[in-house]
């Protein structure tokens, strides 16, 4: 009865992405909460700092980057928590398929679910925060390259802390320092563009970081998960 035809790697990745999207669709909180956090937190800054447009345009890129970063970091909670608690993680670790690609697929789906909506909204908020038009493109490009890095790094942190019942701010303390380079380059791109300087160099750097993160972090995530289920 069990005529197990093997599946290629591609279809495993596709199946993982499908499952994660399905889950997000079933519990919309995973999609909506990071987005709402982003929206509310971005509005906090004009409230807290005064609302004249000169001031706002000065802080716009920083605010959007920092808020995105926080939203991604705290959204990480939903990446492995449920799988850890119901035992799916053990099954994943027992799977003969290479964990590397499975984890990459999982993080990719998380990016699609939690970050893409933010990415789409970010330019709108940039405009609301009176960012000059010249800054929008580098902002988007930077976020496009930077947010996957943030997800991958965050996944490492989450994998390390998933076994602890109260991770909360511990995750933040572990991961935020790693996020700093991304933040610096991301906002650097915008301010370069606003000073009408070329920002391709920074973008390339960000791209390099992205490629490195994609290649290396699944290894770290896998190692961390094995430690956590132990």
């Amino acid at each position: 009865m069990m005529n197990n035809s093997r599946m290629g790697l591609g279809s495993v990745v596709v199946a993982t992405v499908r499952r994660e999207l399905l889950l997000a669709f079933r519990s919309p909180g995973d999609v909506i909460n990071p987005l709402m956090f982003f929206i509310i937190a971005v509005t906090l800054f004009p409230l807290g700092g005064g609302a004249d447009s000169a001031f706002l345009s000065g802080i716009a890129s920083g605010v959007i980057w920092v808020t995105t970063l926080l939203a991604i970091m705290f959204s990480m909670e939903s990446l492995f928590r449920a799988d850890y608690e119901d035992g799916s993680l053990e099954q994943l670790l027992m799977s003969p398929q290479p964990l590397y690609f499975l984890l990459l697929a999982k993080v990719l789906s998380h990016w699609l679910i939690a970050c893409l909506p933010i990415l789409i909204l970010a330019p709108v908020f940039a405009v609301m925060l009176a960012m000059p038009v010249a800054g929008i493109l580098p902002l988007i490009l930077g976020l496009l390259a930077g947010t996957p890095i943030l997800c991958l790094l965050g996944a490492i942190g989450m994998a390390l802390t998933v076994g602890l019942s109260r991770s909360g701010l511990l995750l933040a303390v572990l991961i935020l320092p790693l996020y700093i380079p991304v933040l610096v380059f991301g906002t650097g791109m915008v301010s370069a563009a606003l000073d009408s300087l070329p920002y391709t160099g920074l973008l390339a750097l960000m791209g390099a970081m992205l490629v490195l993160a994609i290649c290396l972090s699944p290894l770290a995530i896998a190692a961390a998960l094995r430690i956590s289920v132990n």
Partner: protein
Amino acid sequence: MWQWFLQLGSPRLFYSKTDRYLPWLSWITVILLGTGLAWGLAFTPPDYQMGENYRIAYIHVPMATLAMGCYAMMACFSAGYLIWKIKVADMIAKACAPIGASITAVALATGSLWGIPTWGTWWIWDARLTSTLIMLFLYVGIIALRSAFDSIDSGARACAVLSLVGVVNLPIIKYSVDWWNTLHQGASNLSLSDTAANPPEVWIPAFFVGFGVLGFFLIALILRTRNEILLRERRAQWVSDLVEGNQKESGHA
């Protein structure tokens, strides 16, 4: 009257009663909204300062009022659920949240659209605008909270507490224009004299739209509540009968 109210407390009676009232309500709403909107859009003289632009008022004002009204209603029903455990009250409160959120969003959007030409900005962090935005966030928070619970009862009670906590925002929205110097205008004074500020030809169509929008709100609320009843009472015999009946109807059609 009290009897009638009590009947609405039973899901089944709520369902059958609203079945009866819905067509009437729909017709009244269509008529009110139709005349009101047409009147406001085309038959009211333009404002001496803002010209045609002020026709946005016929949407903005009722939406803003209704947004607050909806929140107040949600809070009342929440309290009703917390105190007397009336299940229908919670279903209504649940239905209020998404409707209220969309209405608040429209009030914000139309306010912004109106603000661009009149004020010279589409957004300013003044008290009324900010507190309205907070109300939108509260609505979203309540929706999110409910969807986070597996157990219906716990979710219902948690949302009830949150909506009651959020009630403090209502007086802030309402009186912010009096307490602070806001860019937003204060409350209008209405007069029947047609040479006064805000003469009847300005506000009568607004009344039509206002009641029309109220009708729409009630319809949307009832529709959602009925769905919720079907879902939660799915094990009751009358729901099964209803569904079977539906089947037959669609079979005939």
